[in-house]
């Protein structure tokens, strides 16, 4: 703070932009002193969030989630497979997260983004351990056939908080998922049936059914900088201040996952508790948005 500013007077538009590019940390700290961020949000507020269900017509379940500019498209496709020997009564979920080069100027074709496998692993762990989906529901014929749900999440625009948006899109896609009707044909194989059941038995209900979701996980990523906590960072904020904490709570406010992958700032328990409190509030907002999206679909 001892060095003089390159331009002492910030009244003209051009100089503000130049200052933002040349001295990003000072630019942000000037805002943090007033407890506000460059996009006029207070420190604890997340960006506008929207969910649209059924974005991909050809998938069994899909959703498009937007947090500010960050856009995620999630789609689920179901296939029948033989369950493994250790778990003959359970189906399987395969979660894949892609960051195609359209999402960000730093992703190059041929070289996948660094963040992609990290977020994919985080998502996989969170969704499978949260108990949202009971794998036994995905079973068809014990030991012989079960559903494999392929969840693919594509990032269409990367502007910070990738994990939050991806988790939201995944959860919304599962709530939109309809398991198709199948029946057993004469060879003992499972076939997709159009309309009414064609032959013998029907291991699943006669009509497409929705999956029963247990407790739904919601998350919030916060950035720690000196003694400030910023909720829901944009990519600019993430690149300048590198310490972030992701808290995942489920709808009954139980802690599902806590993730702080290092970073220059060390967090005291009080900071972590503040993050959890912010997340609790965010979970209420997200639940409301998800419920509105679901009831909007049912009205159709």
């Amino acid at each position, binding site marked *: 703070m001892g060095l003089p500013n390159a331009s002492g007077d910030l009244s003209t538009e051009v100089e503000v932009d130049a200052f933002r590019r040349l001295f990003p940390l000072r630019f942000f700290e000037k805002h943090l002193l007033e407890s506000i961020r460059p996009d006029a949000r207070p420190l604890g507020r997340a960006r506008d969030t929207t969910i649209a269900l059924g974005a*991909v*017509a*050809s*998938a069994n379940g*899909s959703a498009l989630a937007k947090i500010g*500019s960050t*856009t995620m*498209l999630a*789609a*689920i*496709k179901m*296939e029948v497979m033989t369950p493994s020997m250790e778990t003959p009564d359970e189906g399987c979920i395969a979660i*894949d997260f*892609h960051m*195609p*080069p*359209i*999402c*960000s*100027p730093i992703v*190059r*074709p041929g070289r996948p983004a660094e963040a992609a496998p990290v977020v994919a692993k985080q998502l996989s762990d969170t969704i499978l351990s949260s108990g949202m989906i009971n794998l036994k529901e995905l079973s068809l014929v014990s030991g012989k056939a079960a559903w494999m749900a*392929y969840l*693919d999440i*594509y990032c*269409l*625009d*990367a*502007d910070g908080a990738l994990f939050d948006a991806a988790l939201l899109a995944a959860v919304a896609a599962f709530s939109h998922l309809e398991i198709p009707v199948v029946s057993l044909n004469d060879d003992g194989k499972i076939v997709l049936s159009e309309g009414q059941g064609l032959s013998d038995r029907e291991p699943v209900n006669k009509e497409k059914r929705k999956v029963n979701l247990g407790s739904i996980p919601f998350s919030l990523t916060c950035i720690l900088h000196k003694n400030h906590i910023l909720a829901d960072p944009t*990519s600019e904020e993430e690149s300048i201040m590198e310490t972030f904490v992701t808290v995942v709570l489920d709808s009954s406010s139980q802690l599902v996952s806590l993730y702080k992958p290092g970073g220059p700032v060390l967090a005291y328990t009080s900071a972590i508790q503040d993050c959890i409190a912010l997340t609790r509030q965010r979970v209420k907002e997200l639940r409301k948005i998800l419920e509105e999206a679901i009831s909007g679909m049912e009205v159709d």
Partner: protein
Amino acid sequence: MSKTEYVSPEGLRLDGRRPMEMRQLRAEIGTVAKANGSAVFEMGNTKVIAAVYGPREVQNRSQQLNDQALVRCEYSMANFSTGDRMRKPKGDRRSTEISLVIRQTMEACILTHLMPRSQIDIFVQVLQADGGTRSACINAATLALADAGIPMRDIVTSCSAGYLNSTPLLDLNYIEDSAGGPDVTVGILPKLDKVTLLQMDAKLPVDIFENVMGLAIEGCKAIANYIREVLLENTKQLEYRRGL
């Protein structure tokens, strides 16, 4: 020979269109905030998103061209875009071929000599595939380039046409495309009236080919009109926002 009727005796196709009718078009500009230019283009059920980054610094110094811009293109399909889930959405032969085709088509219309030693990246992602993905990608790329403000000779529009049940059909969907009949894809520069892309599969007598190609070119011109409307509307919005 299958007995499937792709054109009914009344002259209706499987999805209720007439042989010379295109599917419904929908385009939107500026969908990816991070990109310099972006667009979503829908032709019926085929939905494609394109993003353009550039002109920017060349990432691989050895490929830098001193007198013109380097144009790169990548085409990839989402895993859920087709009926069955795809295992390898990019890097397979079809995606590499289409990437090359789109790159060469767009390179023909970009004024690359105005931006030497720079790189223009065009990324196209297919979200839903129902036939005509190549054409939808080229149309989306044109809109994205226009949104990015990259100087071009003319817009490029593309459309496909086929020949089934002795009728030339415009804008094939997936079922008609898989029927085994010829599939002609044309890309033109509408104002200059020049053909920049022409691909055809299967066999076709030359005079019928001329008909089918003429039909595809008509389709391209109709798409060009629609794209111009969309760009004009977008410019009006930009003017309102600037207070002009």
